[in-house]
C-alpha cells in the first residue's frame, strides 16, 4: 500500500453512550439466547493467530490533530440516530446476529422491520407509580433544560424562548415551574442559564438537548417512590404523524394509540433510558438529579405492564443520589421550606388516633418566602395551619429568627437535630432520622418552646404586610373555632399538640417537604432572585464565611484537610473545651468557647469525627454521647475554603450539662 500522510483526528470519533448501550445489549441478547436454547456452544478457539511482528510495523499514516467540530459527541449521537433511521437495511448482511442499521435492534425478527411493520402485541406502558400527579411540567423541564455537572443550566432554543416569554409574562406558570426546577436542581443556587449555543463543544449529558431539539419527547415508562423522592425512568421517543414512534435506538419502537405509548415488547429490553430523581414541591415536579441507565435485562413484563426490579432503580449512581437524604450529607443551607399540612379544619370529626386526616393543605414556597422577605430577621417560617375564610387565606405558623445551631447535628443513633430559636426566644428542635424516615420530626416539646404564633394573611397569592401575633394557646382556640379540635386526636399529624405517649418524635405531614437550597451567593443573581423569590440567605450562626484574610481572630484559624478527630470534649455548666487531633494523635486545635477556659489535653472519651465539603459542615459523632452528660456532637461547625481547608471552627449551641 502506498504511504499516505493525512490529517485526521479521530479523538472525537467515539461511540456514544447510546451505542455503548446497544453493544452491551447485543452481548446480553446473544448470551440470553444461548442460555435459552440450552445448547451451549463449545468454545471455538481462534486459529491462525500470529503475533505481531514488530519489525514489520510501519506507520503509514501520520495523525495530526485536527480540532474537532464542536459538539462532536452530541452530534455523533444525533447522527447515529439519523443514520439508523435513514439507512436502508442492507440485504447482503448474512449474519443472523448482525445488527440492522435500520431498526437498531439485534434480531432478524425485531419489531419495526419492513416485513413486519406493525406488531399488535405491543404492551401499553404505564408508569408503575404515577399517582395522580401531573408530570407535564416535569417532562417540559426535562425537555428544555438540563443542569450540567459544572452547575451551568443549559437550555435549548425552545426552552430559552419559553423562558423569555415567561419573564415577559409572569403568568406563564409553566416556565416559572421549569425555572424553579432548574434552581432546585442546582447545588447551591448558583447556577447560570446558558443556551446550548456556544456550548457546542461540550459533551456528555448536554447532547440530550440536541436530541430533544429534533423532536424527541420524554416518556415516563416506570417510576418508583422512595421517601419524598420519586425516581422516574424516562425513554425518549419521537412520534410520527402515522402514530409510529421511534426511540434513539429503535426506528420503530411502537405505536401511539389512544394516548398511550405502546412499545413493542422487546424494544424496551434494549433501551437506554434516563432515570430522574424528582420531588414534588407544592405540586410542582422538581428535578434533583438524573443518570443514564441501560434497561437491558431489568425490564420484565408483567401482565400489561413492564416491571423493573426495585434494585434497578437504584444503581450505583442512584445510591449517590440517595445520599442526599443521608444526614451526613445534609448541608446547612438546606432546610424544610414547604409543607403539606394535615387538614385540620373543615369541621372534620376525626376519630381518635387519626394518623392521616385524609386531606392536606399546602403552603407554598412563595408564601413562605414572602413572609421571610417581609421580616428583617426571620430565617424560616414553619407553617402550622392554613385556611380560608371569607376569601382571605390565613397562614398560621412559627416564625424562626436568626439562630445559632441552625444546622443538622447528631442527636442519638442516626437521628440528627436542627435547632431554631423562635421569635420569642424559644428553641424549636427539628429531628430527622434517615434510617427510619425521609421526613423530619418535631420534638414533642415543640408547643412548650413556642410561645408566640404568627398569623399572616394572603390575598391573591400575596402575603399582606403585617401579622397578628398571638399566644400559642390562642392558636388552639383558633383551631377549635374553625372546626378542628387540637390535641390527642391529631397525634401523628399535629406535632404541636401531640401527646407524650409517643417516643418523643412525631412526623410532619411532610408529603411534599423539600429541602430548600441556598438562594444564591451574595453578589450573584440566582434564579431564585430572578423569579422574585429572594429570601434571606440562611445564615446559620451569625458568623459569616469570610476569606481567610478577613478573619478577625487569626489565632483560631487552622488549616488542615482530611478527617480529624475531636478527641476530647469536656463540658460542664461553665466551660466547654474542644480538642481536635490529627491522624497522628497530635493536637491540631484546642478551642475554648464563649470565653471559657481552654483546657488542652483532655482525655479521649469518645471519637467524634467531622468532615467538610468545601463549604462547611457540622460535626457528627460516631460513638454516641460524650461523657453521657452533654450532647456535644451538635456543638460546632467547620468553615472551609473551596479547597477544603478548614478556616475556622465555630462553636454554636452546645447543650450544656443538665
Amino acid at each position, binding site marked *: 500500500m502506498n504511504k499516505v500522510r493525512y490529517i*485526521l483526528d479521530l479523538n472525537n470519533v467515539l461511540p456514544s453512550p447510546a451505542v455503548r448501550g446497544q453493544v*452491551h445489549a447485543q452481548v446480553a441478547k446473544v*448470551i440470553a439466547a444461548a442460555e435459552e436454547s440450552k445448547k451451549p456452544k463449545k468454545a471455538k478457539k481462534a486459529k491462525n493467530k500470529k503475533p*505481531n511482528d514488530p519489525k514489520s510495523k510501519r506507520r503509514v499514516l501520520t495523525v495530526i490533530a*485536527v480540532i474537532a467540530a464542536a459538539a462532536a459527541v452530541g452530534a455523533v449521537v444525533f447522527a447515529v440516530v439519523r*443514520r439508523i433511521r435513514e439507512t436502508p437495511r442492507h440485504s447482503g448482511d448474512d449474519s443472523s446476529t*448482525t445488527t*440492522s442499521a435500520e431498526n437498531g435492534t439485534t434480531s432478524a425478527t425485531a419489531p419495526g422491520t419492513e416485513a413486519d411493520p406493525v406488531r399488535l402485541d405491543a404492551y401499553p406502558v404505564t408508569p408503575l407509580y404515577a399517582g395522580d400527579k401531573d408530570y407535564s411540567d416535569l417532562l417540559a423541564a426535562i425537555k428544555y433544560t438540563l443542569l450540567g455537572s459544572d452547575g451551568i443550566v443549559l437550555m435549548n432554543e425552545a426552552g430559552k424562548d419559553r423562558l423569555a416569554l415567561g419573564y415577559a409574562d409572569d403568568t406563564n406558570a409553566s416556565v416559572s415551574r421549569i425555572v424553579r426546577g432548574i434552581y432546585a436542581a442546582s447545588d447551591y443556587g448558583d447556577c447560570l442559564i446558558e443556551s446550548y449555543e456556544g456550548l457546542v463543544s461540550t459533551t456528555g449529558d448536554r447532547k440530550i438537548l440536541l436530541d430533544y431539539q429534533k423532536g424527541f419527547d420524554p416518556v415516563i415508562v416506570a417510576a418508583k417512590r422512595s421517601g419524598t423522592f420519586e425516581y422516574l425512568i424516562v425513554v425518549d421517543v419521537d412520534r410520527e404523524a402515522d402514530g409510529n414512534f421511534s426511540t434513539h435506538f429503535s426506528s420503530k419502537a411502537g405505536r401511539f394509540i389512544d394516548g398511550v405509548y405502546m412499545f413493542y415488547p422487546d424494544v424496551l429490553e434494549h433501551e437506554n433510558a434516563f432515570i430522574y430523581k424528582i420531588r414534588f414541591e407544592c405540586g410542582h415536579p422538581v428535578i434533583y438529579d438524573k443518570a443514564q441507565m441501560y434497561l437491558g435485562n431489568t425490564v420484565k413484563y408483567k401482565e400489561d405492564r413492564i416491571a423493573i426490579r426495585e434494585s434497578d432503580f437504584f444503581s450505583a449512581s442512584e445510591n449517590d443520589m440517595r445520599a442526599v437524604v443521608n444526614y451526613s450529607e445534609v448541608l446547612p443551607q438546606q432546610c424544610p421550606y414547604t409543607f403539606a399540612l394535615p387538614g385540620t379544619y373543615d369541621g372534620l370529626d376525626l376519630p381518635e388516633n387519626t394518623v392521616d386526616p385524609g386531606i392536606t393543605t399546602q403552603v407554598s414556597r412563595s408564601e413562605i418566602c414572602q413572609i421571610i422577605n417581609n421580616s428583617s430577621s426571620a430565617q424560616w417560617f414553619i407553617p402550622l395551619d392554613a385556611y380560608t375564610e371569607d376569601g382571605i387565606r390565613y397562614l398560621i405558623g412559627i416564625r424562626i429568627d436568626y439562630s445559632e445551631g441552625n444546622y443538622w447535628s447528631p442527636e442519638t443513633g442516626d437521628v440528627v437535630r436542627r435547632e431554631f430559636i423562635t421569635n420569642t426566644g424559644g428553641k424549636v428542635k427539628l429531628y430527622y432520622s434517615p434510617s427510619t424516615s425521609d421526613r423530619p420530626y418535631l420534638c414533642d416539646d415543640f408547643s412548650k418552646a413556642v410561645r408566640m404564633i404568627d398569623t399572616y394573611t394572603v390575598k391573591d397569592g400575596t402575603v399582606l404586610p403585617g401579622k397578628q401575633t398571638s399566644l400559642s394557646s390562642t392558636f388552639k382556640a383558633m383551631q377549635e373555632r374553625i372546626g378542628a379540635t387540637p390535641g390527642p386526636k391529631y397525634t401523628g399529624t399535629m406535632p404541636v399538640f401531640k401527646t407524650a405517649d409517643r417516643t418523643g418524635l412525631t412526623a410532619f405531614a411532610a408529603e411534599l417537604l423539600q429541602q430548600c437550597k441556598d438562594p444564591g451567593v451574595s453578589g450573584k443573581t440566582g434564579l431564585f432572585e430572578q423569579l422574585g423569590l429572594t429570601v434571606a440567605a440562611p445564615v446559620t450562626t451569625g458568623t459569616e464565611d469570610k476569606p481567610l484574610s478577613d478573619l478577625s481572630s487569626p489565632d483560631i484559624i487552622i488549616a488542615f484537610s482530611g478527617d480529624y478527630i475531636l478527641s476530647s470534649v469536656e463540658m460542664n455548666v461553665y466551660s466547654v473545651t474542644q480538642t481536635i487531633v490529627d491522624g497522628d494523635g497530635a493536637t491540631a486545635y484546642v478551642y475554648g468557647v464563649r470565653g471559657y477556659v481552654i483546657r488542652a489535653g483532655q482525655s479521649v472519651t469518645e471519637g467524634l469525627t467531622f468532615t467538610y465539603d468545601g463549604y462547611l459542615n457540622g460535626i457528627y459523632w460516631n460513638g454516641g454521647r460524650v461523657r453521657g452528660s452533654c450532647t456535644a456532637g451538635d456543638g460546632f461547625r467547620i468553615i472551609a475554603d473551596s479547597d477544603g481547608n478548614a478556616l475556622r471552627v465555630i462553636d454554636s449551641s452546645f447543650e450544656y450539662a443538665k
Partner: protein
Amino acid sequence: METEKISEYVEKYMDDAYKFAFIVTLSDAGAASALKGAVGEMTEKELWDSRDVRKELYTLLYKHAVNCGAEPMTAAEISEKYGRKSDDFYSFIALPAEERATCHLTVYEDMSEEDAAKVIGK
C-alpha cells in the same frame, strides 16, 4: 466466558473498534452497526476466549463494516464533524475502504501492514 468478563472486553476495545469501523464505513451509523454486529458475533461464537481477541474482533468488524450498508457521510459532513478541510483529508476518505482500514489498523492498532491486510482479508 462470563457476561461480566465479556462486558469488560467490550469496553476495553470499544473505542478503538468504533474508530476503526468509522474509518471503514465513514459513517457513525455504520460504525455503530458494525460494532454491534462484530461484538454480537464474537459473543455468539465465543471468540472472547481467543488468543488474539483484538484480531478476531477487527476481522469481524471489517466484515460487518463493509456489509453494513450504511450510507457514508459526505466528505463535507465528516469534515464538519471531525476534521478541517484539507486535501489530505479528502484524499484519505476517498480511499477504498480496505485501504482506509489498513491505514487505521497500522496506526491505531499497531499492527504490521501484513497483519492488517490479513485482518481485512487481503
